[in-house]
Structure formats: C-alpha cells, structure tokens
C-alpha cells in the first residue's frame, strides 16, 4: 500500500515538472500560434545558469534568481529577435527556425561548459527524507518540487482568471485581431507571455538540476513528453496543461512501476519485464491517441 502511495507521489512530482514546461508551451502556442521547439532549450538554460551560479557563489537564492532570470531573458530575446519575424509565416517555417535554435543553444552550451555534465547538489537543508506515513519516507526535495509546482499552478490560475493581464491573454488566445483593434499593444503582450513561459521552463530546469543530470540535450528528452501533455490537455489551455500533465505523469509512472509486475502473473519473468517496459513507454502515447479519438481538441480546449 505504501508502495502505491509512493509511486503516486512520484507520478505527481513528475506531472508537476511537466506542467511547468507545458504551461509555457501551451501559452505560447495558444496565444501566438507559434510552435516553439526550442522550449526545451530554455529549460536547459535555466538549469545551466542555476548550476553555474550555485558553483560560483554557493548561494541557493542567487542560483534560483540566476536560473529564472537567464531563462526569462533568453526567452524574451528569442521572441524579439527570431520569433517576432515568424508570426505571419506558416508552422513549418516556425518549426525549422526553432529547431535551428535548439542546435544553436546546444552547441553554445557545449562551447561554454563543455560536454561533461555539471554537478549540482541539493541544498543541505532540503537533503533528506521525511516519514509521511509509517513505512513511507519521501525525499524532502521532491516534496518541495510538488509544492512549488502546485503553487505556480494556483498563481497562474489567479493571473489568468483574475487580473487584467490575464484577461488580455485569454482574449489574445481567442480573438487576436479584436484585441489588437481595441488598441492593446499586442507585441508587448507577446513578449511578456513568452518571457513568462520561459521563466516557468527555467524554473523547471533549475529544480530538475539536483536530481537529474545537467547536460546538453536535457531539454529535448522532456520536450516530447511536454508536447504530449499539451495535446492531451488542449492547446492553449493552462487548465488543460495542468490536468494533462498530472494525468501523463501519473499514468506513465504507474504503468512503469506496476505493469511488469502484473504481466509477471501471466508469463515468465524476463519476458514480462521486457514487454512491460515496452508497453509502459508506449502508454502515454496510447493515452494521447485515445484522448484525441474521443475529444479531438484535447480535454480542456482553450476556445470554447
């Protein structure tokens, strides 16, 4: 029983990380209509900036600020200098340009930091585990990730639904021309939204640093999952990104953890393990296919 609970927590934590990335991606796609393949690079930039700052200063706060600032600034620069020229073009051009950005970012990071992965330690205060229930211990750092992710979700909900900026963002997602006609500086809004998306990606990156390897190409590994989340949740919808991310995180973790065990009841050990691993890694894509069959626009489409 505790094993099931622990795996659910793992799923939740993975889902929250996906949410931070998916929120930015879905905002950018929903509002500007840009497919930003280089979103994973912003995640990498956040992780590297935080790792570098932590190694130089040894301060957690400075590392966090550096990661967030670097990701947001790089994101806004990307919007200003590259993407702004692509809004009017079709998706293929955008995909090509942002794919080029991935290569440029990866090589720049290789030049600056080398190919060797960086080492980031968990802040000493958060290094350890707590006993949540008898027999269920869980690393504090991962609990913090879950908490931060849920807080960000709440903050975004309030921002989108309760503030003037949020109103513009929602309006921009559905009636772009009308917002522009009403005299809103849509360019500034775009840059701000892009910066926010980049900031969230950077946050995910810097939090991932101490548990995963900070290395070139780390963004692409998680980017595919993020796209699955965006598609399942409904393009352009923050709410969709949130529930989509939790669903994907939980389904992926639970399948990986328990499917081989279930298959072992009906077939021999090593075959069950190999088949289970294969089916589990297909799991979220099958989930995506089913969701698209039943609700072609995703679970929570933005413009209904």
């Amino acid at each position, binding site marked *: 029983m505790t*094993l099931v609970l*622990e*795996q659910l927590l*793992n*799923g939740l*934590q*993975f889902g929250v*990380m996906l949410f931070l990335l998916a929120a930015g991606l879905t905002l950018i796609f929903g509002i500007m209509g840009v497919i930003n393949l280089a979103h994973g690079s912003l995640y990498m930039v956040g992780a590297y900036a935080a790792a570098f700052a932590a190694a130089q200063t040894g301060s957690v706060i400075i590392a966090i600020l550096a990661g967030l600032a670097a990701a947001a600034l790089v994101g806004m620069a990307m919007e200003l200098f590259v993407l702004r020229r692509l809004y009017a073009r079709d998706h293929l051009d955008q995909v090509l340009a942002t794919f080029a950005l991935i290569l440029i970012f*990866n*090589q720049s990071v*290789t030049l600056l930091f*080398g*190919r*060797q*992965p*960086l*080492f980031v*330690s*968990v802040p000493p205060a958060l*290094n350890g*585990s707590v006993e949540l229930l008898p027999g269920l*211990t869980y*690393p504090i*750092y*991962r609990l913090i990730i879950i908490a931060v992710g849920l807080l960000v979700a709440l903050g975004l909900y309030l921002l989108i639904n309760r503030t003037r900026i949020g109103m513009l963002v929602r309006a921009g997602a559905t009636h772009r021309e009308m917002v522009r006609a009403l005299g809103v500086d849509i360019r500034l809004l775009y840059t701000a939204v892009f910066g926010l998306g980049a900031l969230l990606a950077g946050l995910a990156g810097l939090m*991932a640093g*101490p*548990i*995963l*390897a900070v*290395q*070139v*190409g*780390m963004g692409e*590994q*998680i980017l*595919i999952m993020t796209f699955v989340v965006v598609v399942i949740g409904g393009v352009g919808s923050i709410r969709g990104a949130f529930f989509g991310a939790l669903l994907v995180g939980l389904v992926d*973790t639970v399948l*990986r*953890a328990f499917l*081989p065990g279930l298959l072992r009841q009906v077939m021999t*050990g*090593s075959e069950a*393990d*190999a088949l*289970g*691993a*294969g089916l589990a*890694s297909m799991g979220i894509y099958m989930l995506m296919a089913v969701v698209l069959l039943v609700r072609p626009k995703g679970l929570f489409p933005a413009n209904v």
Partner: protein
Amino acid sequence: MQNRKSVCLGLMLAAAVALPALAQQAPVKIGMVTTLSGPGGYLGQDIRDAFKLAIDMNGGKLGGAPVELVVEDDALKPGQGKQIAEKMLKTDGIKIMTGIVFSNVAGATVPDIVDAGALYVSPNAAPSNFAGKECNENYFVVSWQNDSLHESAGQHATNLGYKKAFILAPNYQAGKDALAGFKRLFKGEIVGEVYTRLDQTDFAPEMAQIRSANPDVVFQFHPGGLGIAFLRQYQQAGLLGKTPMVLAEPSLDATTLKAVGDAALGLSVTAHWNTDFDNASNKAFVEAFTKAYNRVPTYYASQGYDTALAIASALKATGGKADVPALRKALAKADFQSVRGAFKFGPNQHPVQDWYALKVEKGADGTPVLKTSGKVLSNHSDAYAKDCKL
C-alpha cells in the same frame, strides 16, 4: 637578366623546400567516426583526444609512419555513422577506421567498413552479434566484448557473497546484453529485473521498487548522464547507505564520478583499466593526458589510446603501408604495451584480458576517486569466441 636570375633562385628555393616533402611518404589516413555531440558526446571526445595524444606523443607518427586523423561526428545516429563511413571509404579511400562509441551505430556501420575491405579497430562498442558467428577478419576490438563488462560485475557480486540481486538496464540491445552478462556469472537469485527507458531521467519509481524488493545488492547499467541521475537519486532515496551496489565501468567512469560526487562513495565497480594501474605505459599515458587536457582520463580515453598503439604496432610491421592483409596479420599479434598491462586477442579478435575490482573512496583532496582493490577475472575472453570461425 636580373629578373631571370631571381626567378631561378626562387625556383631553386621552392624546390629545396619541396624536396623533403617529396621524399617523405604521404601520411596514412585513419578515419574516426565517433559520437561528439549530445549527452554521450564526452565519450567520443575522450576517445578522440587520447588517440590524438598518442599521435602527438610520437611526433605526428604512429609506428614510425606519418598519419592523418580524419574525425567526424555521428551524433549517435546509426544512419549518419553509415553515411560518414561510406564517404571515408569511397571518397577519401581510407583503409583504417576506428572510433565508434555506441553499439547501435556500430551495428549499422561496421559491416559496410569490413565488407569494403577496410580494417575496423573498435575502441569501444563490441556488440555480441559481431563477436560470434558474424565475426570478421577485418574487425578487431581493443576494448572488450560488451557482455564481459557485466560478466565481471556478476562475478564480483558473487565473490562478495551477495545472494539476492535487483538488476536494471535501459531497454535496448546493450542493456539486454548487460543484464544477460551479469546473470551469466552471478550465482545468486534475481529478485527484480527492470528495463528502464533510454530517454528516462527520473528513476523515482524504480527506487521505490528496489526498496520494496529489499535485495542484498543492486546492479545497474546506465551509461553517461543516465548513470549520474540514477546514482544521485539512489542517494536521495536513502538507498545508498543501505543497499550496496555493484557496477560495471560504463555506469561510473571518471566523468560521471566527478558529477555524482559523494553519492558514489563505497560503490563497487569492475573494470579492465584504472588510472592507478602500475605499469610504465599507463603512467606515461595518464601523465600526458592530464597535462594535455587538464582532466582525469576516463576508461574511454584509455581505449582510444590503446587503439592508437595497436594501429601503430601494425603500421610499424608493414613499414607504414596501408596494406590491409599485412596490417591484419600484424595487428593480431597485439605487439604493443597496453595501458592495462597484459593484453592479447582471442580467436574472434576480441581481447583476452584481466578484470579488476575497484572501490570508490575519498582521495587525497577529499574528492571521490576509483581505487583498484583486486582481481576479479583472469585472462577472461567472452562467451561468443567459440562460435567464431576465422
């Protein structure tokens, strides 16, 4: 008149400069297809740098013959590796090839090279399918056969007296070879066998499974960045102090060790080479590598260096001619001082060598280092050599 004189003088001067170049033979080209980009990029980088080091240490020559190293990045894409190899073979007329890091790239590329009549000397990848029935007279492996890495770990776990093992590896050919290799020489019981994904970065679900299975020992194969994430999370899950881990060297090389830090203390590793091996060739290599590149060489680097030495021994025997049958014959003798000490080729032209146990300990400056603690297997070949008819 004055003009003609100076033209003549110029010609003579030019001839004087050109003559020594004419007298020297054209350099032997060596093609290196390796992985230099992406998370696995540092593996290829170390192989390339060590190979170059061997050339530089001998004044631009290998075995007395001037050589030119042509390096290209396969980006861990089998298709790209195949294309590069084709270009090197057909356009550049290269006869000696090396460099491939990953088994999946080797699987697509090596058959083309050996079928084209060129020599391939592997500094790393050695998948099982090329070691047995499909072995080839033009295919040499200086590193190891993939399974041997993990067989040594299995033997080591048995030697240490562990009874219940939990084993994990990514779900691809080398991962399956790893688990098969470990099980071949591990005498205890396997209480859990998990295949992870090659693109997986979070191992929390696996950590929970390990904890609930409560094994005596964990064996895992996760090369490069995967291994860093795995070990870090193993420590964070509180398993490091409780459940010992036995690994083969790909899961803990000098670079991952640096990134993992104290999370690696106390782990048992098996390897065919380590920086502290006490032989003249190794001492010269470790010192030169550290001086030239300002980092600790990984075992990949040692293999790149050994590969260069092996090719040098063959070129010396042929007097610098890239004549494949003669090179092949000379290479099979393995007439070079390997940095790992004793070394010879088995009947399938894969190494027959000793395997050692290493332990991660705190070094003099407080950072963890790998220390050699004893021998695990002597003159170990591989399970496929008997199927090879050469």
